[in-house]
């Protein structure tokens, strides 16, 4: 098949990740959870949510890279995952921009 010949990333996803890596990732996820909970009790002002999301993104990145083997997988999977994240971001940005426009530019409350 063409992608085998052309794509040097085609084979490595049979790469067997050592059990130790899994355990380390697991511990990191547990620590991340604890940090998220702890951080929510600290008043960081407007930074509470960004910090929580940053930790969540890091945890998700660990799961995707190691548990789901994306680190050892063809570039194509990255592209598809990236496409979904891109369009999701655009959905949030587009709808969010509408509401922000109403809130901050004093154009009246949304929907009116």
């Amino acid at each position: 098949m063409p992608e085998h010949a052309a794509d040097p990333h085609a084979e490595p996803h049979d790469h067997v990740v050592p059990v130790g890596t899994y355990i380390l990732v697991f511990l990191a996820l547990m620590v991340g959870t604890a940090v998220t909970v702890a951080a929510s009790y600290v008043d960081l002002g407007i930074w509470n949510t960004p910090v929580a999301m940053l930790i969540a993104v890091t945890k998700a990145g660990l799961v995707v890279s190691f548990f789901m083997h994306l680190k050892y997988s063809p570039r194509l999977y990255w592209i598809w995952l990236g496409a979904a994240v891109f369009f999701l971001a655009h959905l949030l940005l587009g709808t969010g921009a509408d509401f922000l426009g109403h809130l901050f530019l004093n154009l009246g409350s949304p929907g009116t």
Partner: protein
Amino acid sequence: MSTHAGEVPEPYGRPGGPPPPERPTLPVREPVNYLNVSYGTKSWLLTVDHKRIALLYMFSITVMFAIGGIFATLIRLELLTPPGDMVQSETYNKLFTMHGVVMVFFFLIPSIPATLGNFLIPIMIGAKDLAFPRLNLLSWYIYIVGAVFTMYAMISGGVDTGWTFYVPYSTHYSNTHVIATGLGIFINGFSSILTGLNFIVTIHKMRAPGLTWWRLPLFVWAHYATSLIMVLGTPVIAVTVGMVALESGLHLGIFDPALGGDPILFQHLFWFYSHPAVYIMILPAMGVVSELVQGMSRKRIFGYSFVAISSLAIAMLGFLVWGHHMFVSGQSTYLGLVFSGISFLVAIPSAVKVFNWTATLYKGSISLDTPMLYALGFIGLFTIGGLTGLFLASLGLDVHLTDTYFIVAHFHYIMVGGAIMGYLGGLHYWWPKITGRLYPETWGRVSAIIVFFGFNLTFGPQFILGYLGMPRRYHYYPPEFQILHVMSSAGASILALGYLLPLVYFTWSMRYGPRASANPWDARGLEWEIPSPPPTENFVGQPVVTDRTYEYGSEEGTTVV
């Protein structure tokens, strides 16, 4: 295990190369193919052959097209006279809603991908089937379940919200069958998602050796772009109509202003899918036309890579412009400016395609057979539809034209003049491959011409109606609009005749049509190298691609694009 050595000149079509050998048009005994390999209802309902599933879809969407067409007929009948004398406004609301729901979700979106795409993509890339044949069958069943829900809603009284289900009308005030219809669309969405997923994996993983991306037929490129929208757009509409169904049933407040919900949010989520959905309808038709124009002018397409990439560009940009449906909804004006600007960008890849098709015709050896007539019709009508789309993308002008017949005319030029012309053109072009029979060419040309003129008579006057200020979705109107409405209704009856004709002669040809050779158009592409109709496994051995697609032996064919 050689496939068809000796049957096909290799490489064929080169200047001075051997002409394709004559084939017997009437073989003594029909060889085994996907149609006669087994018989009976069960062999069809449990089939995993992509070609048979394509025919299942073809039958289903034809039924849905007929149902949607009946609603359209009633609408045009009512609009013959200024007063609302045939139906009440409630009935009229249901008529245009059901027309929209059936035509958009159950005909246009599956039309080309699920029939021609299903049939041709594996063959065009030299594969035996789609990557997930059972999933493909499941898609069809999901489509049927979705259709049954919608039919139930129709039979038990219909739905009157418009196909857009705008809240809070749909969730709080309409006492029609919003929930059943919403569920039908929700379920049908998964059919679309799974079809797209299947195409993506198939195109990535199952191409024949040597068939690189830059050798792929443009039909396949177009379907890859379509599948991208299907997979990434459809889930949003599914969850949105799901929320509408929940809101209608339980009054949670998500879209209810009285409880803090926001109806504009619904419009955002709805159009996030439903704008790209327009490209689900038109991109496959563009893929078909790319094939038709080359096959019928016997010339490799002008600027292959630009046409291929413009499909992806349309799919990507299509996701970024949904707000142009909401210029008068109360959406932030500044955001409207951005959406207006990005909407203009979509014109660029669309125009690239139109220019390249036209340039392909230049000095081509053009034969005005039925598929070509449809393709030329497509190019003209799509151009009109696309250019009027620019009017509507202009923020200021849209305030005048929105919710008038100008919009109705515009999107029918794209969806009927574009998508359905493409579908019919493709159906004629590949009909000999699908059924192994030839349709009567004269009748085909007659139907193409009738459809073209009927269509323009139906929707041309609606541009003027809309510009003069006739709003859409009204069943009565001031008498001065009558002449334009009568023209439109007259055109609709001509258009209906144009659609009935192919139904009649296609049905006739399945039994009485002359047998088709493997390559009746003397066209290029893997699908023309296997028998008509193809065997279940498509290819006897593994085809190996050694050259790029569309080598028609013209001088352009040897230049590197």
